[in-house]
């Protein structure tokens, strides 16, 4: 997917919120967009997600399956969490029966199963945010756009979302995110965008990181986000059974193993070259 000279303003006399943006969003790439308040990054994410159309320029080869988590998901909706997710499943390309099981699975995964049958408008902000995040993961989006999606989530849910993001990337999806916490998925984003006054500057990729993973390590009992932060870890895939598969650069494998084994509760299940 490519943005070609994209500009956006709301209304014919409004100021240009995004201007002359030409960036590429390739498959299997994690993109971090950063910038101050009012820099235009939220509008940029909405353009990517297909929520709003460019006023100028065009989007070429856009992804068909997209999912978006807005900055604030005010759930003034007359549904329970479970009902809402079941209704959104078909919009993400799921069949009705798959929507039901996938909704339950995600509610469980984000620790929201306990209030899945309460009306959304009775839920706390953080609980609503879990539902907003869960809907984005219902299908298997080729493009996942997250605007401060972590805000309001509890720690466990934040880690689950980290893992889900890395899973999507490992699965070949493009993920673009904005988060106020600079430590969010630190070192894992392959591309960085600096947004200022509606313009995007693509930061130089970090060339010091070797791209190929030589050794695969499967670990149980540790959070994917923590593992992703270790030096030399190139890929992190959280798996359904609670284990995490790491792709590690050959020269860093000993250090990674040492770091993992020094943590209480950690269990190395497999090491493969």
């Amino acid at each position: 997917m490519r943005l070609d000279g994209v500009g956006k303003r709301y209304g014919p006399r409004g100021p240009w919120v995004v201007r002359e943006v030409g960036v590429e969003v390739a498959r299997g790439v994690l993109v971090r967009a950063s910038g101050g308040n009012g820099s235009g990054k939220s509008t940029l994410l909405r353009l990517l997600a297909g929520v709003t159309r460019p006023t100028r320029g065009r989007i070429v080869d856009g992804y068909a399956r997209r999912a978006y988590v807005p900055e604030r998901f005010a759930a003034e909706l007359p549904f329970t969490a479970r009902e809402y997710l079941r209704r959104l499943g078909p919009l993400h390309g799921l069949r009705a029966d798959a929507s039901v099981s996938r909704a339950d699975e995600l509610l469980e995964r984000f620790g929201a199963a306990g209030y899945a049958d309460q009306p959304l408008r009775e839920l706390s902000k953080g609980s609503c945010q879990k539902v907003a995040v869960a809907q984005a993961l219902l299908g298997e989006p080729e493009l996942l756009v997250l605007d401060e999606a972590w805000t309001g989530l509890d720690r466990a849910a934040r880690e689950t979302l980290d893992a889900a993001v890395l899973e999507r990337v490992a699965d070949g999806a493009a993920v673009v995110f904005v988060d106020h916490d600079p430590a969010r998925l630190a070192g894992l984003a392959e591309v960085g965008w600096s947004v200022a006054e509606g313009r995007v500057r693509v930061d130089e990729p970090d060339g010091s990181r070797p791209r190929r993973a030589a050794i695969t390590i499967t670990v149980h009992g540790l959070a994917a986000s923590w593992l992703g932060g270790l030096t030399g870890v190139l890929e992190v895939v959280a798996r359904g059974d609670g284990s995490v598969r790491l792709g590690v650069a050959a020269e860093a494998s000993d250090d990674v193993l040492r770091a993992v084994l020094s943590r209480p509760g950690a269990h190395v299940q497999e090491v493969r070259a």
Partner: protein
Amino acid sequence: MTRGLLRYHSSLALRSHGWLPPLTLLAFLLLAGRVSAQQYGDALGWCAAVLVPVCGWLTRAVVSAEPDAAAAVVAAAAGARAARASALAVGLGGGLLLGAVGAAFEVAASSPPSGPHASTGAVVADGLVAVLVGVLAGTAAGALPVRGRAAGVLTLTAGSLALLVASVSPVNAAVRQTFTSQRSGASTSLPWLALLEACVLLTACAAAAVRVERY
């Protein structure tokens, strides 16, 4: 996908109870109309006229039942224009339902015209087409993309009045013909032209509404 969208928007509309005020207005106006209109022609003509503001209100209620953030989420998954079209389709479906209920009520409660007149079947058929015209034109007025509650109410009121009063309006033509259809020697041709115009009007308004971003 389309079915999923329609299901989502219809359950959203149904549960948010935005349909209740327009339905109440319809019931009130239909009952009020019984005072003077008791024969098929004028009863169905009245019903057609009443359906203009009622369907406009209903469509606006359906479209605005969805908070902006929720609409953005759906737009990303299903396409922004498809999502807006689906909400309008649900508004139209609701309007047709109200039209059917209103017409059934009028037919059940009214009597054939007294004195010499065209065949009762022709008068009723004429009235039913007029009811359909009222639903389509009202939905078109409600679909107009106007931001804000006050501006929306104003647009809808002005739009409904214009549709009812202006002599070029399809509703005006259809209602006029329905009122006169029960007189002796009246033309018995159905108001097809008005129906066609109402379809064009709705298509134009819906096409504009689907293109305009609300958030």
